């Protein structure tokens, strides 16, 4: 299988995630954008791992590691959003910044 397809997919995922982070005003959706970017990176790692046929599967190991970190990160992020919502009754970042 060509390396091109997974890379295209991961670029698309990354672009959508970036757009979500930059354009969305809802804090939860911004976090989701961050998740999309992380998973684009994971896809890259797995694709390159397969492409290089690495004996140690460094890419896959690193992907597992990233998933674990991402889970922790999203948990922390959602906790912050929850606290924010409790404090100001909104999750709109423009409203909060004001």
């Amino acid at each position, binding site marked *: 299988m060509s390396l091109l397809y997974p890379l295209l997919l991961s670029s698309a995922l990354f672009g959508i995630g*970036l757009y979500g*982070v*930059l*354009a969305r005003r809802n804090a939860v959706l911004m976090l989701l954008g961050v998740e999309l970017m992380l998973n684009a990176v994971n896809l890259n790692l797995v694709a390159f791992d397969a492409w290089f046929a690495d004996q140690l599967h460094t890419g896959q190991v690193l992907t597992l590691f990233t998933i674990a970190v991402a889970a922790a990160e999203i948990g922390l992020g959602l906790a912050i959003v929850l606290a924010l919502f409790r404090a100001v009754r909104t999750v709109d*970042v*423009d409203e909060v*910044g004001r």
Partner: protein
Amino acid sequence: MNLRNRPRGPWVYVAVTAVLAAVVAAWAVPELREHGWLVFGQSSSGPGAPLPSLSPDLFLFPQAAQIILLAVGIGVLVQIYSTAYLGHHPRYRSYALIIVLFLVAMIAVVGTTNLWVLLVGWEVMGVCSYLLIGHEWQTAEARSGAAKAFLVTRVADLGLVMAIIVIGATYGTYDINGAQAGALQDPKNGTLIGLLVLLAVVGKSAQFPLHSWLPDAMPGPTPITALIHAATMVAAGVYLAARLFPLYADSEVVLTSMAVIAAITMLMGALFALAQTDLKRALAWSTVSQLALMFAAVSVGLAESGLDHLVAHGVFKALLFLGCGCLMHAVGSSSLSAMGGLRRAMPVTFWTMTIGFAALAGVVPTVGFFTKDSVLAAIDFATEVENGPLPNGMAWVLLVVALLTTFVTAAYATRLWLLAFFGPVREARDAHEAPRTMTGPLIVLAVATFALSIGKHLDARIGVISTIVAALGIGAVVALWRRGSALGPAPAPLVSELGLDRPFSRWIPAVVTSLSRLVVDLDRDAVDVYPRGGASLVGLASNGLQMAQSRNVQRYATAIALGVVVLVVIGVVAT
């Protein structure tokens, strides 16, 4: 006795001064016996010694020893007097200590052979006189008088600094004796040195045209006036002129200018003293006039008799000023219109001041008569001597002016005496004699006024002439007084002191003020443009940058993302 009621504090300072006086006397009196006038080569550093020699060599000759003894003696008397006069003043401590510093500075000036040490003493005296004249700094006159004294003498100090540098460059030493030894062999730069020294002493000793600070220093406490006029500040100028005389003795220009200045000042000061309505100010003008007489003696080449007159004048002028302080103590003012008829109420002050005025007028047998006689004899000698340093014509002018001054001096001394002690009792009906701590110094000085005249040389011809002239002056005033004239308002130009103070009180401040305005304007409109321009540029830039700081995290993230894209594009294009 008054002393018991008084706190012990003030006497500490009297004791300090007395110890200083005793030390100085122990050192000066033997020197008085040993050395003659201007002994050369006693000091270790002759011509060619390494240049900045700051050795505190001390060296005395008789007149210098006399001046030092005079300074510390009057210093002790002034301290004793001040315990009663100012003992309860809240700033008495600093006052008394500055007097001690003043005396030490004077001793440094008179005792040293090193020009730089002399300069230090000279400047310290300037500061001390500033501080003491401005002792009552809550009054505006005291502040302005002090500032004026300081600034005018400062201008003159420039002359001394430059003179020292020129002397060092000319003779290769900063030692006075060394320079004098060099000048004896081969006098050089006499005119330049002489003119610079002249500038220094004219300012310090309040001679025309830098004379006006001395009468304006009258807001200072009266004992200080006595100290400045008699023993320290102004005496230093005459002393320096006499001490450095060998360095410019060959310069006709310097001696003629000095003679001209002396002639103008002596007559002017005497006439102004005649016109004053204030006793203290009249005495100040009298000091200006008497100092000019000493400079006249220096200019005809007999510095010795000038210094003799300095010592004599110091004694009787201190007596007069301290007596004036007693009168002010009794009357509450130094204005002559407040005095009158005080001879019964204040017998001690009356008799001692009578002796002082007699010495000022030059009445036999006070010391003032003998020393004035020797100055006049010196001038008279200069009118006849051939190839003297001073042109004979100038000496004649000086002699005539000096005799005129003798006449006017006798007249104003008599006038002041009559106005203060005779006539109807005016404001001071309850006037009483000053305490003994104040009259005691007066008695000591009155005795000294006679004692110092023992053994003085007398030129009989000049003595007779000056006695006649002085008698005419006294007689004229007494005659006017008898005829019932109140010796009142003098001609207006004399009262206003010919407007000679105007350059100092109006023009120079006006010029300085406008100059400083110009400087301020230049600073604000020309120099400040650059820093202010820089500041506004930075301000503009920060305004621009502020727009980027939107407090919107997503915009920052957008900028980061765009930046990454740009970097990648650049990277791709570059490879």
